[in-house]
């Protein structure tokens, strides 16, 4: 009996010992051998790496006016499992969300199939409306809290707003929903604007809520830098307003105006038509997003004669007053015609009267190689280097592939394709005394505290011609804007203007030109001496009256209107006492401390 009891006790003890040994072994196995994997599972369950998004940098104009910045918005989300009174909720939400109550009721009643419960259950994630303004969302949240209605939450997001909507839309571009820049400086400077996201290691409780007291390592985000553009919204507004007025009148297929500071290459204003609303991208067409100032190629026509004349003068093949025989209006060897029968014209007058035969002869005298070299030196056939995406290089064929007529055609702006910005840069080179400047669109980059991080000083690409040659061309261009020239309508009261018109038939793509389709343009600067700005106006297929579709009649007056307003805006002192090109009359103006003359 005693033996039995003892053996039972021993048995029980042995079993217990075995059990405890097993448990101990398991404990050691779990705690020691499998420690790493269990620790990993536990860490994964209770900790998380939460990204801290960086704020996208703002963009402002040269005077600090905001052009692009961020604004918080909310997405309204319903959790059907928490909603008790659907009708009351729909009634409250309908007004602020601007949605019909019926539609909201239907959305709130949405169900999903639950595999666990094997039945339809209320959906827990119903997106009611996106992009709800912060003020509307906070008011709505307060109303719901007061009525003690559950089941609605407001997820925060950030959107990009463009206070000027359409102004400078092609320069700015836009940021997509994922905050990636598309087009304009938003694309070119995407990395600068985006910054770098940070992160934070957080601990969570069983319900998934953060326990802020147990936060781990964190790296703060580096917010995006801000851009200050060279664009001046005052000038941009002048350009856009005039462009709109001109487009209403001429209804062109497309139009471009560029205003550039010739000494620094800073782009002061850049506008294209058609354009689009940066705050309403859904309505915009892809065609409207094209920055025609840098992406559209056109044959510049007579504005290109400036390059030919500058090249001839720089090579000292001719002087400004050298007389060239203009074949009485028809140059049979090259099948060239002038719009009037000129006999002898000085180099100056070739530009003033825009003689095709005259510039063709200048190009012939230069020689193919030299002429080609000058065309390239002025920046044609190369991208200008402006900080905007999708810039075209233009088409300038090398002399090896030229035929007999190419040189004479190129001299007058045919057989060559350029962008309006290239013309503006070339015209700036004439205006500033012969230096080709890289067009600049960004003035500087600042961090979030306004400290300048980097600047974009003026960059001279190369000297293109001697100052004397540039001056001679400028003088001729001044005469173009007189009653005897082709652009008298580009005159501005009180200022000496230099410019050149261009009227080019559009190529049909089969080696011929379309009879009734023109690209008309005007490129000029003001004041002629020490100019404050260069302006290029390009109108593609303007619907002018029969016989009036010329650069001098369509583009030049637009230049005049823009230049006059720009001069007032910039406070340029008048340079002239007489109307340009007229001997009589005294032009008097008083303002900004300048006494009547």
């Amino acid at each position, binding site marked *: 009996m005693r033996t039995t009891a003892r053996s039972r006790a021993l048995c029980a003890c042995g079993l217990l010992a075995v059990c405890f040994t097993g448990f101990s072994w398991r404990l050691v196995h779990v705690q020691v051998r499998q420690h790493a994997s269990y620790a990993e599972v536990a860490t994964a369950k209770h900790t998380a790496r939460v990204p801290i998004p960086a704020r996208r940098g703002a963009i402002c104009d040269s005077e600090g*006016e*905001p052009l692009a*910045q*961020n*604004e*918080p918005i909310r997405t309204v989300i319903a959790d059907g499992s928490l909603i008790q009174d659907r009708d009351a909720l729909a009634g409250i939400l309908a007004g602020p969300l601007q949605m019909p109550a019926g539609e909201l009721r239907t959305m709130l009643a949405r169900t999903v199939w639950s595999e666990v419960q094997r039945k339809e259950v209320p959906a827990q994630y119903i997106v009611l409306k996106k992009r709800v*303004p*912060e*003020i509307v969302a906070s008011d709505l949240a307060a109303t719901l809290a007061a009525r003690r209605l559950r089941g609605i939450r407001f997820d*925060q997001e950030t959107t990009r*707003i463009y*206070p*000027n*909507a*359409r*102004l400078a839309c092609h320069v700015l571009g836009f940021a997509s929903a994922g905050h990636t820049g598309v087009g304009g400086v938003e694309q070119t400077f995407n990395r600068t604007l985006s910054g770098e996201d940070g992160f934070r290691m957080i601990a969570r409780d069983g319900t998934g809520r*953060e*326990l*802020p*007291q*147990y936060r781990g390592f964190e790296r703060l985000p580096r917010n995006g830098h801000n851009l200050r553009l060279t664009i001046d*919204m*005052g000038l*941009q*507004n002048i350009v856009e*307003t005039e462009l709109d007025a001109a487009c209403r009148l001429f209804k062109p297929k497309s139009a471009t105006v560029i205003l550039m500071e010739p000494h620094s290459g800073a782009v002061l204003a850049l506008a294209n038509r058609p354009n689009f609303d940066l705050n309403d991208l859904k309505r915009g067409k892809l065609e409207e997003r094209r920055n025609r100032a840098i992406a559209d190629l056109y044959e510049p026509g007579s504005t290109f004669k400036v390059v030919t004349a500058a090249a001839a003068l720089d090579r000292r093949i001719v002087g400004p007053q050298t007389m060239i025989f203009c074949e009485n209006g028809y140059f049979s060897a090259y099948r060239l015609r002038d719009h009037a029968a000129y006999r002898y014209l000085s180099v100056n007058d070739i530009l003033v009267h825009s003689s095709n035969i005259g510039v063709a002869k200048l190009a012939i005298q230069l020689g193919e190689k030299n002429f080609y070299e000058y065309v390239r030196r002025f920046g044609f056939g190369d991208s200008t280097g402006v900080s905007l995406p999708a810039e075209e290089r233009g088409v300038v064929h090398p002399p090896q592939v030229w035929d007999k007529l190419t040189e004479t055609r190129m001299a007058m702006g045919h057989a060559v394709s350029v962008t309006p910005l290239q013309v503006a840069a070339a015209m700036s080179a004439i205006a500033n005394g012969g230096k080709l400047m890289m067009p600049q669109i960004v003035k500087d980059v600042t961090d979030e505290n306004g400290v300048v991080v980097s600047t974009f000083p003026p960059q001279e690409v190369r000297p293109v011609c001697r100052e004397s040659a540039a001056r001679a061309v400028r003088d001729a261009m001044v005469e173009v804007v007189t009653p005897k020239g082709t652009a008298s309508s580009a005159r501005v*009261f*009180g200022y000496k203007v230099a410019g050149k018109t261009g009227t080019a038939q559009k190529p049909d793509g089969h080696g011929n030109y379309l009879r009734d389709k023109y690209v008309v343009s005007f490129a000029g600067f003001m004041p002629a001496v020490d100019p404050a700005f260069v302006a290029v106006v390009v109108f593609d297929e303007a619907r002018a009256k029969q016989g009036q579709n010329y650069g001098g009649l369509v583009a030049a007056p637009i230049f005049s209107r823009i230049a006059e307003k720009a001069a*007032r*805006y910039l406070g340029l002192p008048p340079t002239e*006492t007489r*109307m340009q090109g007229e001997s*009589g*009359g*005294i*032009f*008097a*103006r*008083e*303002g*900004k401390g300048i*006494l*009547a*003359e």
Partner: protein
Amino acid sequence: MRANHRHYQNVVPVARFIIGIAIVFFISSASIFYVWSRNQIDLQGRGIKELERELAKLQNECDVLRGQIARRSSTDTLQQGFLNGLIRLAPIAHFEPIYRMETADGNEVRAVSNPNRSRRP
């Protein structure tokens, strides 16, 4: 020996009692301190969260206001206001350019009176 034993048995074990109480006091105060500390940490966590929420709210409000200011003071809005007649702008120059057809002799430059000037307040 026996009497002595009895004598000692009847004496209250004050020292042990005090030691026991001290141990219990120490353990309970340590536990309470631990709980209090954890609670403090939790409260601080909640405080941090609350402050973060407040900061985010202020930042949001600031961004919203900045957006509104930018919209209302934008060139586009001012231009629209001007076109709709809601905003009136003073002319940039008080004086209009005057173009006189009659010429002075030679290169003489002379002052031109401005009729608008007398109307000025």
